[in-house]
């Protein structure tokens, strides 16, 4: 019985082989090559495994974290009111704040690792963290 099974199996494999090899046409090869190309591309696109720089915010004893590369807004409450930040195009800025002098708002955008903005009256501290490999450079200049 095993002999019969192997017999029919070999004929099956042979017909598969026949239709596979005899009938493979030119465009088939091109399409398969294209598919392989795309697969290799997808492997490459997995890309850098290390995370993106983070925007960390400390306020009122708690800590928040946001991905610098993702656009978002967030609002934090402190002693004098609310402070709102906006992350856009891989940079952070303070959009509005209830403090009197609004120094934080006029600080403008920060985008590099190590840069920070602070709203002292409202006790909000914004910092860009990350390792240097992730593309953030430590910058010496401050406003």
């Amino acid at each position, binding site marked *: 019985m095993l002999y019969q099974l192997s017999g*029919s199996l070999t*004929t*099956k494999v042979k017909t598969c082989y026949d239709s596979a090899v005899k009938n493979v046409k030119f465009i088939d090869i091109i399409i398969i090559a294209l598919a392989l190309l795309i697969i290799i591309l997808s492997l490459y696109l997995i890309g850098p495994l290390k*995370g993106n720089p*983070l925007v*960390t915010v400390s306020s009122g004893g*708690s*800590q*928040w*974290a*946001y*991905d610098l590369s*993702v656009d*978002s807004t*967030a609002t934090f409450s402190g002693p004098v009111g609310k402070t709102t930040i906006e992350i856009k195009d891989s940079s952070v800025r303070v959009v509005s704040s209830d403090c009197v002098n609004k120094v934080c708002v006029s600080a403008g955008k920060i985008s590099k690792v190590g840069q920070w903005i602070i709203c002292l009256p409202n006790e909000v501290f914004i910092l860009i963290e990350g390792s240097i490999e992730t593309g953030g450079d430590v910058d010496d200049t401050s406003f």
Partner: protein
Amino acid sequence: MDKNYIKLISGLLMLPAVFLHHNVIILFIQAIYCVFLAVKSGRKFKLIPNLLLLFSIPLIHLTQPNGLIIITVFSFPITLGALIVGLRKALILITLLYLSFYMVSDRPQFPGKFGSLVSLQLFYVGQITLTWSTIKQKRPLIKAMDQLLLNLEEKKGTNQAAKKEKATLKDYFVVAIQLILFYGLFLLGTTLKSGLLTT
């Protein structure tokens, strides 16, 4: 309205109440309710695939920090906001799935020519299973399939009229209650802005 359309319509009406709010607790309640509806309509509920969904989607979203930091694991922040976004997506998925099971459970006859085409299709599936069992030599496979198809050619299908019941007042009442419940939950979801549980 025919009885088989009731579930379909009520499900469709319930959809916005699921999508349009961001409250995870309310979503969880809605999900449980939809699972209940599906199970009542005869569908089985399997715990493991759903748990898998509830774990994997939030987990994937945690890789993109967003919001209050709960724990830091190997210097990676686990954020509440990301968790909630993930949970919301997973819960919507599950709710939608079971709502969908519920909606089609009465085999609604879809209208028009297309509906009768689908009925024909379903008729032929039955024919395929029947005819396949009459085929004696199932190997070699291709030859058997060919035989099956040739045999099938002989039979032409006709539409079977599904037994049509009219919907009763009680049915409408049940649906109305259901909708009120669901939208009530939805309103709760939009108004209860506890900072922890919304995005």
